[in-house]
């Protein structure tokens, strides 16, 4: 089942990032399918926990550089076929029955999605449509997108692990909101990376990142990181404000969203300190 879990994790990322390449309605289908695969991942994770089986989020790198969307769609279909062949390794028949039904449907839909040329998502042109960026702003935005796309993936997995391994309803509500927020940010940044021709799947996580022992310290560090991210957004908004009002307001919007994340983490911190 550990191989099944790993392959599912890789298929989720492959599907999510293929969604970023697409410039058509296929993007929405791929987003929805990636949501389903992520949900499957949490089902298997809960089964590991229920059966007291240790697990981790180690995965292989997920290659996505293609010229045509069909190459990735075929790749995802192959990944799903491999997942289907391993479903029996999960002992919970209810879970695998539901997964099988979802996976069969997804394969049929993926095979019908229209062809698209997607080479521009990887051509490193770093030009943003309808925006003129100075070299300095372009470099800053490039580094920001790599740092933050990884960070959002990391946060999704950290909060997911924390949620899966906690029975505290108050904390789990906060973890779920933070997961949803990070999904939104990952999708915003992933689309921007594709538009700039620098799309890549984030690297895998070291176990100690999500298997931390001190939740209080994790939250304190998290608040500091969010404050740092706010500052970066502020600087980026200023750097691009001359060339793009849209960009500047986007980064101001992201900056303000970080306030909500900080408030949630402070709420979680207060909760564990009052216990």
């Amino acid at each position: 089942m550990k191989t099944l879990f790993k392959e599912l994790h890789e298929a989720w990322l492959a599907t999510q990032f293929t969604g970023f390449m697409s410039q058509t309605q296929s993007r929405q289908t791929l987003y929805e399918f990636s949501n389903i695969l992520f949900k499957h991942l949490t089902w298997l994770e809960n089964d590991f926990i229920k059966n007291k089986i240790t697990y981790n989020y180690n995965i292989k790198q997920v290659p996505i550089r293609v010229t045509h969307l069909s190459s990735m769609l075929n790749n995802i279909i192959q990944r799903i076929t491999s997942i289907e062949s391993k479903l029996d390794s999960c002992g919970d028949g209810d879970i695998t029955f539901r997964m099988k039904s979802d996976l069969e449907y997804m394969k049929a839909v993926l095979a019908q999605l229209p062809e698209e040329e997607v080479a521009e998502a990887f051509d490193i042109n770093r030009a943003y449509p309808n925006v003129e960026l100075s070299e300095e702003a372009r470099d800053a935005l490039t580094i920001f997108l790599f740092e933050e796309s990884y960070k959002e993936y990391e946060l999704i997995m950290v909060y997911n692990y924390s949620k899966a391994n906690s029975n505290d309803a108050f904390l789990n509500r906060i973890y779920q909101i933070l997961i949803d927020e990070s999904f939104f940010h990952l999708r915003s940044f992933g689309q921007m990376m594709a538009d700039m021709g620098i799309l890549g799947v984030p690297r895998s996580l070291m176990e100690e990142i999500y298997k931390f022992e001190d939740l209080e310290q994790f939250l304190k560090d998290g608040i500091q990181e969010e404050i740092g991210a706010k500052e970066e957004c502020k600087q980026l908004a200023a750097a691009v404000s001359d060339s793009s009002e849209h960009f500047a307001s986007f980064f101001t919007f992201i900056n303000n969203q970080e306030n909500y994340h900080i408030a949630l983490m402070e709420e979680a911190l207060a909760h564990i300190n009052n216990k």
Partner: protein
Amino acid sequence: MNADAQLIEHMMNPKNYGDMPENDATGIGKNPQNGEKVAIYLKVEKQTDPLITDISFQAIGCTTTIVAGSIITTEAKGIHFSRAEELVSTTLGMLDNLPPEDAACSEMVALALKASIDTYAERQKDANFPMISYIIKTDCTPKEEEA
């Protein structure tokens, strides 16, 4: 760090990234200032001058660390320990020419490679020798933040 095309390639698709459960030696390079670290895993062919047949790395760190890890592990794959030690020395010797935050990342990767080589060497004498960790000397605070 300037984001030129070659470096962006390493950001989009870092070479040799990931764990290696069946490794012959692991080494760690650490930055105690900010908790960042790099782990390097080696697969080694036993020879008078051992050969690095495979190498991978993982990091808790920034994009610069990932780029440095991708470049240095690519250089180290398929070379003997004597050449890998030269690679470590050359990298450490170039740190003064880099901005402090970039220097700290490169030092962390170079020290992780050194630690993995040293761990392997020690394990030839004592199979239970613990994994070696080295701590970087470079202060990674950017100059403008020091004031």
